[in-house]
């Protein structure tokens, strides 16, 4: 009968240790997960996106460097793939990567968004230089044949990107310059 005096069987012991190990593993997996949003975030992308946004809104696309954030229509149109500007623009190179400068393993999308014609929605804009100044920015179905103010890689399907946003003036209207990098 002596073998029945044991209060603990091997099975009990196994269950206890399993519970302990599972909880221990769970805690160690959970803690880094809670801190993750504060640690990651593409440090270099954040730095690059700010530099690109500052460079474009304060130097590359502006009409006059003494008035930053006021963009030149001609240079902006050329930058986004429109006809060549009459004068010189403050950027060089042909591709987007050469013009703004980012790493070989980074992707960028630069666009100008805003609301025109009194609508409240912020949408993708396009530029029609054949119109008179002040009404050159268009959106939606008016865009046919105009220069779409977006350049770079396709943003669709990208899960996480870093966004830089600047308030700029283009064609006497206040719009947003949005730089996305991933």
């Amino acid at each position, binding site marked *: 009968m*002596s*073998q029945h*005096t*044991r*209060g*603990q069987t091997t099975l*009990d*012991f196994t*269950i*206890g*240790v399993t*519970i*302990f190990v*599972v*909880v*221990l593993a769970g*805690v160690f997996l*959970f*803690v880094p997960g*809670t801190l993750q*949003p*504060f640690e990651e*975030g593409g*440090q270099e992308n*954040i730095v690059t996106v*700010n530099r690109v*946004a*500052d460079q474009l*809104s304060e130097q590359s696309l502006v009409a006059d460097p003494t*008035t*930053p*954030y*006021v963009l030149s229509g001609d240079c902006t149109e050329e930058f986004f793939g429109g006809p060549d500007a009459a004068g010189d623009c403050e950027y060089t190179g042909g591709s987007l990567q050469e013009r703004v400068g980012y790493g070989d393993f980074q992707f960028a999308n630069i666009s100008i968004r805003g*609301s025109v014609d009194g609508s409240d929605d912020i949408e993708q804009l396009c530029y029609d230089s054949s119109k008179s100044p002040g009404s050159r920015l268009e959106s939606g179905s008016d865009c046919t044949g105009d220069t779409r103010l977006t350049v770079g890689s396709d943003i669709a399907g990208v899960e996480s990107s*870093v*966004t*830089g*946003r*600047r*308030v*700029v*003036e283009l064609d*006497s209207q*206040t719009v*947003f310059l949005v730089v996305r990098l991933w």
Partner: protein
Amino acid sequence: MVNRGQAHTLEAVVAALLLLSSLVFALQITAVTPLSASTSNQHIENQQQASASGILSIASQNGDLERSVLYWNASGQRFHNGTINGYYTETMPTNFGQSLEEAFGDRGIAYNVYVTYTGTNGGVVRDEMIYRGEPSDNAVMASRSLVLTEESRLRTEDLELGTQIDSGNFYAPDVGAGGYYNTVRVEVVVWRI
């Protein structure tokens, strides 16, 4: 023979509970909110600051900033249609106010606009233009200076030219000799709510 009854199983469960409760305790004492400091938080502050500088720069370039600073109701001693305290609590009915509202208004971002100028005794006076409350610790500021001359004229409610400014009808006093009147610095303070 082992005479201990159930000791290992209970110890394991107690140890597991201890681990869990210390984790819960650690989570409860550190309030991790979207406003907690982090690199992404800093990034957002940079965006807000750059947006505010952009708005000020644009308004300064096309004259909206001057129009807004001079949008003063001399007889009421406040900005046109402002509250009895002199300032606005939502936005101001000029293009500058509209730009601020467009950039920050519907994005859960609050902003104050202050005007600072030299007072009669030479000190710096700070008045509210748009005031939405006390900024948080994470607020950022952008500012732009504007020189007023004695030729500067108040704007009427419809943004038409009004009378010339002088110490009697304008909030900032005439502190300069000759044509110089005063220098007004417009400060935009932005924070997330």
